[in-house]
């Protein structure tokens, strides 16, 4: 079994005990070393304070979990609304069969435009899912950082700050929907097909 990762609170305790021992020594040359160790100890204290503050505000597991839930709720609610809209469009199409050709064509075209517009739910759903994953990743990292600072044990043993997040192979191609600046248009894709 690998040795447990060193924790910042333990490192600080160790540093403080070394500083205390050095101070008790009657040697002038100890001063620069004591100064450096005091600086390190203060730096660790300040870092732990920052992590604790993060953990108790925007980085708290409760806040991040709520944020994920809220985002997932948006996906759920927009899907519900989109399905209602499509039901109405389907009704319009059905009713169009009872009218004369000109009106029927106009109603069918309107229904088509509604179906096309409803695709927004798929796109926004995918974008929100990307954000949910990012929030969950952030939560995981803050948990790990808090564990390293001695605030609580890391939630998952297999997570480390050096975890490789780079995807390879076909998986690296799953990044859509692209932002407008990075996206290719249908015409550009058609050109790649030689159409």
């Amino acid at each position, binding site marked *: 079994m690998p040795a447990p990762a060193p924790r910042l609170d333990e490192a600080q305790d160790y540093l403080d005990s070394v500083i205390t021992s050095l101070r008790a020594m009657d040697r002038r040359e100890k001063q620069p070393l004591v100064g450096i160790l005091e600086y390190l100890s203060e730096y660790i204290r300040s870092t732990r304070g920052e992590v604790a503050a993060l953990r108790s505000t925007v980085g708290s597991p409760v806040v991040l979990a709520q944020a994920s839930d809220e985002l997932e709720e948006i996906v759920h609610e927009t899907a519900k609304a989109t399905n209602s809209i499509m039901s109405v469009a389907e009704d319009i199409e059905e009713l169009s069969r009872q009218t004369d050709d000109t009106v029927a064509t106009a109603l069918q075209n309107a229904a088509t435009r509604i179906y096309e517009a409803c695709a927004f739910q*798929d796109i926004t759903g995918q974008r929100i899912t990307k954000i949910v994953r990012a929030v969950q990743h952030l939560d995981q990292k803050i948990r790990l950082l808090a564990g390293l600072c001695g605030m609580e044990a890391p939630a998952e043993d297999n997570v480390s700050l050096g975890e490789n997040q780079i995807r390879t192979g076909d998986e690296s191609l799953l990044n859509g929907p692209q932002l407008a600046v990075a*996206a290719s248009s249908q015409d550009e894709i058609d050109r790649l097909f030689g159409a």
Partner: protein
Amino acid sequence: MAVDKKLPIMIVDDYSTMLRIMKNLLRQLDFENVEEASDGSTALAKLKSGQFGLVISDWNMQPVTGLDLLKQVRADAQLKHLPFIMVTAESKTENVVAAKQAGVSNYIVKPFTADTLKAKMESVLGPF
């Protein structure tokens, strides 16, 4: 030869809303023989057990992606010539190239219009 509108079409997407949109647009084009699957594995099983004339698939699905499905279709002796259109929000050139290399018949970027769907289907199946 005119395209048979009774052609069985498999649509694959993990968003039920998208399946419904696609089904409605296909119905407007008079293609009513449409089978749905919400993931690549289900789609492949259905494709192997039926006689389909076209697959229209999303890319970003788990655990079997649209690209995985395409590769499995192209690797299957019975299915390898099946027309396969990718409909996806993955619009980077590298994605299009990867899909092309895997043997995709055509590629539609989401969001798309009914006219685009018709044009890409015609490019694969012939005019209708």
